[in-house]
């Protein structure tokens, strides 16, 4: 084996095809530190001009409380143009501080980027609502809806986090979501029990993952290829079975009983936070649990240490007696199970039956969320929320009638992700061994 150590192994000696190897290549070599301050300044200016100076003269109204809340807060009223100016000036201030830090050769701190993002979103929201025909929306509804839409994204991105942290690129999130949605629908329909459906969805997601794991770990097939092909395969299988089995007897095979929304008394009445945290379906509550468990697991436990070691430096893990490929296999499988649960959200919570391509590309948004969240479960959670927010806003703006075409709102997650991977929004570093199969010796 050592004979091949000096000569490149033909099997893996083609660094260009392995993404990470590619990424390790010197690019133009320009230091990335300037990108963030410059981007923040540009966005601040955009906000100042469009959201501020070109803002509407109307007053944007944001309903905070809903009828069910146990105490009522007044509607928030913001004059659109002055509001936009104030917020964008704050943004420019932050951008200036980032530039100042850069001149001192210090990077932009994370809190600054986060605060900037929040301000930008707020300014954008004021601008959108202020420019609408009916400049009034329910903030509570908007946020609650965003969380709802984010549920499958969060599960999907957690699956991605688990896989990539252990060194396997998971492009098959879409397939796992779709497989979970289909299986949840058909099993819940047959058993007339949504909980069995939920469990079956996890199993289905895990099964999809196992195919990914077997092909990429045992047969060393390029992980991106397996992921891409698996998405097609799952789309084909579910589409085929939908057309044959489900359509033939809808009542029997495609009318799953849904998971009910469980309200926690009193707590669910807290304005804004109540509906998000305490008025969810089982899947929604599981989402919070999963985020916390995965985060704690990855960063605070023995298991997590080993997982991250395998994803960063599998050889080092191997020499410490850790079974690299077994660790990878089970983590990828676990990731699939989590994504499968996320898929069940479509058929057990959101809609009461399965249709073809019900996941509608959300697996790819989950992938985006995972990257935007920098391979961290909590980061991925907030990224997914942001994307869910964009998704929700898209449907709301069409209703209230605003200057922004809804298609551009729909584009937002994808654009943001491109900016993120281009290193314009902070630096993101994937686990070092992600995408590279481990061959002993």
């Amino acid at each position, binding site marked *: *084996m*050592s*004979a*091949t*150590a*000096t*000569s*490149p*192994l*033909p099997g893996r*000696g*083609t660094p260009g095809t392995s993404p990470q190897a590619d990424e390790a290549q*010197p690019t*133009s*070599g*320009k*230091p990335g530190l300037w990108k963030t301050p410059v981007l923040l300044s540009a966005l601040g200016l955009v906000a100042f001009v469009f959201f501020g100076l070109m803002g509407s003269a109307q007053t944007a109204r944001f309903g905070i409380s809903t009828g069910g809340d146990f105490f009522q807060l007044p509607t928030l009223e913001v004059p659109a143009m002055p509001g936009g100016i104030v917020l964008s000036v704050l943004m420019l201030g932050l951008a200036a501080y980032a530039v100042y830090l850069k001149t001192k*050769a210090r990077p932009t701190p994370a809190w600054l980027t986060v605060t900037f993002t929040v301000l930008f979103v707020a300014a954008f929201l004021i601008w959108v609502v202020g420019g609408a025909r009916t400049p009034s929306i329910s903030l509570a509804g908007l946020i609650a809806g965003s969380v709802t839409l984010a549920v499958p994204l969060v599960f999907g991105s957690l699956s991605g986090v688990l896989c990539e942290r252990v060194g396997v690129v998971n492009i098959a999130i879409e397939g796992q979501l779709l497989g979970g949605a289909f299986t949840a629908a058909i099993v819940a329909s047959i058993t007339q029990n949504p909980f069995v459906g939920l469990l079956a969805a996890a199993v289905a997601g895990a099964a999809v993952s196992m195919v990914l794991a077997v092909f990429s770990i045992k047969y060393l097939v390029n992980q991106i290829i397996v992921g891409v092909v698996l998405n097609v395969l799952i789309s084909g299988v579910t589409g085929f079975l939908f057309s044959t089995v489900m359509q033939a007897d809808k009542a029997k095979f495609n009318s799953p009983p849904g998971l009910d929304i469980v309200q926690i008394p009193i707590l669910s009445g807290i304005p804004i936070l109540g509906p998000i945290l305490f008025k969810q379906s089982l899947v929604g509550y599981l989402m919070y649990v999963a985020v916390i468990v995965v985060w704690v697991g990855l960063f*605070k*436990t*023995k*298991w*997590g*240490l*080993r997982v*991250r*070691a395998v994803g*960063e*430096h599998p*050889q*080092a*893990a*191997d*020499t*410490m*007696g*850790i*079974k690299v490929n077994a660790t990878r296999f089970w983590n990828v499988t676990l990731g699939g199970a989590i994504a499968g649960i996320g898929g069940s959200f479509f058929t057990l919570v959101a809609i009461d039956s399965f249709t073809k391509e019900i996941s509608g590309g959300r697996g790819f948004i989950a992938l985006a969320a995972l990257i935007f969240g920098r391979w961290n479960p909590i980061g991925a959670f907030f990224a997914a929320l942001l994307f869910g927010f964009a998704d929700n806003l898209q449907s709301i703006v069409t209703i209230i009638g605003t200057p922004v075409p809804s298609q551009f709102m729909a584009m937002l997650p994808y654009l943001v992700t491109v900016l993120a991977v281009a290193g314009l929004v902070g630096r993101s570093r994937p686990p*070092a061994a992600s995408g590279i199969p481990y061959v*002993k*010796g």
Partner: protein
Amino acid sequence: MLQPPIPSGSCTDASRLVRVLKLELRGITKRFGSLLANDHIDVVVEPGQIHCLLGENGAGKSTLMNVLYGLYEPSEGEILIDDKPVSFRGPGDAMAAGIGMVHQHFMLVPVFTVAENVALGAETTKAGGFLNLEDTRRKIKQISDRYGFDVDPDALVEDLPVGVQQRVEIIKALVRDARVLILDEPTAVLTPQETDELLDIMRQLKSSGTSIVFISHKLREVKAVSDTITVIRRGKVVGSASPGDSTAELASMMVGRAVSLTLDKAPASPKEKTFQVKDLTVIAPNGQHTVDGISFDIARGEILAVAGVQGNGQTELTEAILGLQDRVQGSILLDNVELVGRSVKDVLNAGVGFVPEDRSVDGLIGTFSIAENLILDRYDQPPFAKGISMSPAKVLENAKSRIDEFDVRTPSGLLAAGTLSGGNQQKVVMARELSRPLRLFIASQPTRGVDVGSIEFLHKRIVSERDQGTPVMIISTELDEVMELADRIAVLYKGKLVGIVPAGTGRDVLGLMMAGISAEDAASADHAGPVKADTPATETPPADTKDAATAERRAASSPEGGDHV
């Protein structure tokens, strides 16, 4: 079959002293396909000894140790601990049996802290599987204090210098209560001074009861620290030696013939200085000056060798000349033409021949044919191309003549370059670079991982290029190669030029310069008295030292896995 993993908490001084173990390898044979890497090797490591495995890099030492550490399964033979046969199905088993290993390439996760790296695989946990790094930190401090390691448990490994990383590796083994510690070529990345410190640590470990298997090809170190020496050549044990044996004896055992291989090199006749580097500074993306204000020049018909421990700016220096570095200040003049700011293609076209330090990464495309690799930097020039249209026939024709000229051992130029041995790969790179008229020739680590036979050939070609009147720059971390080839020697330390000294300068002076001490100070320190007590030069005649050094370096250059022409 095996003991359960020893809970790391049970490691106390008393148990360490009591539980010394005897390790025996009996008839170990390891085959990779048709390649016989280890051939019935017998080694006995007595408790509390430093046992050296001496041999060329391709001799099979590392393979043997990977078998012992459970990374490879032996094809035949058995491992005995305290006379009881054991079998290791993985490093976990080996560690549980009390064997620790510090690999040549460190097995540390760069983005983890020291404590996380040490804990990995032998974590102490609280209830529910939660990590208890406090416990690991305490152990690190304990070991660090005992041996004077000075390691911060919470530092990120990627921020640590290599010397400290190596100590982290040793701590990893000690925390696991290793009673036999394997050190695989541990001094390759160290300065002579750091090497001395490591040898001290080894002696300390020995005195506290840890046996050490020390893999090396550096005779000085081996003689300084070993209790027993086993010499391995071409996968076989060729004999035992004692540290008292002469350097020449050890060298000839290692290489397999009487060693008198000095390079037949006429004195240089330097002509005009056509290559000048002035105040060259290279700035890394993190703002560090990897090359810091260097000035030197090379005359036509002269070899300037650049010495230094790896990672002191050599790579960046050559990359700056070639145009691969982005942030370069100062001036590089070749025939009075400025090279700074030009593209790689321009620099190559200006007549610079370049042999990169890592041929499989920078020098060759493994999946391309030899023929294609032979034109890798001239594929778009006549006669190989007209416009953007290439002529395969001409490419093949060129390959045939180059393969003959440079004696590349291959049945066909159509074979993938990756299938060649290290020596033949290097010949391909060298053939490509030397097959056009050059105004400057730069070779980085020209013989690293190359077998003894090829080294002589490559060295001759380098000298003949000099004799044709080309300025030649050699970069080598092997001091002996520098001393053999150089007409003048430049020493780099932390990106700065410590000094340029004439070819005859002694090893000790160069060693001190490699640690950043200026030539004058180094020379006076050297004259003041012997710097190192274990320098063998006093006990062997000078000629013998030189030959031995040559043999040693050649041994070092041979690649892993029996790279024979």
